[in-house]
């Protein structure tokens, strides 16, 4: 009876998780979907608490209380701009939990697990541990606790690979001698170390891809836990989680037109100087009042936000500018590149925060044909995603990456602070085009001034 109820709660949770994620296929149904998933989680937890193996609840209640408090605090107060870090941190938590459950299982049952379970358990602990430390390093890099630049040294790849080989050797030996605790704890330690070394040589800018990959590892670790404790809902949730990480990393790599191996082993971003090509001509500085007049009398203006908008927290100011222009009858559209910013969907969520309706956000394929008939394109802290070299110069390191073709607009205004490069470290020929003017300064300040200028135009 009791197990029946527990199993039912897990089954229900599985259904609700799937339905919940299906809800995310549309913004209208997304919230309801998440409520379903929340309810499923509650079911599963209540079901588990009925498990007859549980004899005392002190540790459980303590864990739930502390976890909820920290979780609630993080959930409520982490700013939208810090999402990448938060995600990295939460993967560390998730992976650590999987890893610890595995360790405790081994500690308790060790040799009596049978080969198959030991296999799944080893997999769980291996993936869980390296994801834990890897995610922590990623978090530190993004948060600025560690230097963001790739940390490389000679023979690094060889060293890392050897370390991995030793770790895997431990794992295999453990399959043969499940009782040999030394092997298990050695593997555990090595996996923790390997996670650090794996992520250190990757630049902060590439972290989003790494995070997505670690996400899929964390998901796999959960699924492996499901095998060990014979629990289907864990397998399902783990695979959903893993699938999401995997797909997002693919989406990012595709949108950057770089193979995943290049991200992981290329130490991208450490060679910024070499890539700078001489461009000869000069950048024209634009005058704020001129830009305001141009905007005020345009028929259509397209805003192209990028990473700079996120760092400057300029989304609200941007929205105000859009309001001011729309009040004057200008059609305003937002062009969203799939890898603008530092996280999939980064710009969408920031603009949503600033109350921009998502029907005004246009994807690449929909907005590119519109640039030739656009009077003014305003580039707000974007750089690589509007670099025409990706399209025109087959030798560029970002060649082939799909871009927003703002250079085809009648005129372009770029808001940035100075001569700073984008994520790829490339010089952007757009800035030297005759139809392009530069409006220097922090994006938020420039935009706020533009709003006033438009009002008085």
């Amino acid at each position, binding site marked *: 009876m009791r197990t029946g109820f527990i199993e039912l709660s*897990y089954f229900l*949770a599985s259904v609700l998780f799937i339905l919940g*994620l299906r809800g995310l296929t*549309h*913004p209208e149904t997304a*919230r309801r979907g*998440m409520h379903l998933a929340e309810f499923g*989680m509650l079911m*599963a937890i209540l*079901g*588990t608490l009925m498990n007859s*193996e549980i*004899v*005392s609840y002190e*540790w*459980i209640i303590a*864990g*739930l209380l*502390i*976890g909820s408090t*920290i*979780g*609630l605090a*993080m959930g*409520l107060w982490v700013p939208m701009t810090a*999402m990448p870090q938060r995600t990295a941190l*939460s993967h560390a938590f*998730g992976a650590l*939990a999987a890893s*610890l459950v595995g360790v*405790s299982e081994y*500690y*308790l049952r060790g040799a009596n697990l*049978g080969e198959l379970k030991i296999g799944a358990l080893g997999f769980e602990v291996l993936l869980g541990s390296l994801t834990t430390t890897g995610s922590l390093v990623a978090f530190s890099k993004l948060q600025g606790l560690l230097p963001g630049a790739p940390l490389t040294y000679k023979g690094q790849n060889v060293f890392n690979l050897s370390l991995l080989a030793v770790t895997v050797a431990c794992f295999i030996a453990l399959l043969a001698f499940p009782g040999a605790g030394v092997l298990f704890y050695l593997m555990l330690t090595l996996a923790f170390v390997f996670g650090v070394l794996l992520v250190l040589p990757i630049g902060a800018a590439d972290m989003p891809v790494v995070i997505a990959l670690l*996400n899929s590892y964390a*998901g796999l670790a959960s699924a492996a836990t*499901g095998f060990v*404790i*014979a629990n289907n*809902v*864990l*397998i399902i*949730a783990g695979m*959903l989680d*893993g*699938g*999401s990480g*995997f797909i997002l990393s693919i989406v990012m790599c595709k949108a950057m037109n770089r193979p995943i191996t290049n991200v992981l082993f290329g130490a991208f971003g450490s060679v910024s100087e070499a890539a700078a090509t001489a461009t000869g001509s000069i950048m024209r500085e634009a005058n704020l009042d001129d830009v305001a007049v141009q905007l005020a009398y345009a028929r259509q203006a397209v805003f192209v936000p990028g990473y700079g908008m996120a760092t400057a927290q300029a989304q609200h100011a941007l929205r105000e500018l859009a309001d001011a222009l729309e009040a004057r009858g200008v059609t305003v*559209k937002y062009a969203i590149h799939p890898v603008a910013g530092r*996280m*999939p*969907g980064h710009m*969408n969520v920031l603009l949503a*925060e600033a109350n*921009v309706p998502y*029907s005004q*956000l*246009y*994807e690449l394929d*929909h907005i590119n044909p519109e640039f030739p008939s656009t009077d003014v394109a305003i580039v707000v802290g974007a750089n690589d995603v509007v670099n025409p070299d990706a399209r025109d110069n087959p030798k560029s390191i970002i060649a082939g990456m799909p871009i927003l073709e703002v250079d085809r607009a009648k005129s372009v205004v770029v808001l940035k602070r100075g001569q700073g490069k984008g994520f790829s470290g490339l010089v952007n020929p757009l800035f030297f085009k005759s139809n392009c003017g530069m409006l220097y300064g922090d994006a938020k300040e420039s935009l706020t001034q533009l709003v006033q200028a438009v009002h008085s135009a």
Partner: protein
Amino acid sequence: MHPEALISTLYVFLLAAFLGYQVITRVPSLLHTPLMSATNAISGISLVGSLVTAGAHHSIVSAILGFVAVTCSTINVVGGFVITDRMLKMFKRKATAPSPEQKK
């Protein structure tokens, strides 16, 4: 594990992988950030393992490991769902001031 059960579990694994792929590829890039925090929250289901570890009192070591695991997973569950909802609440189809073009 009973071999029949093991085999079925493999099928569950296979089907969940396919289903995950199918469902996630349908999520529009508009919602990729909420997607990340949502799967994050859902992956906190590893609670079902750690709760038992924390409460089973086999040994103090395992109880403490379980406690840490419960704490970590709960952070993910609560934090993930709260943040997802916070984000999703912000997505609106129409502005308060109506925007002239609504296609997409």
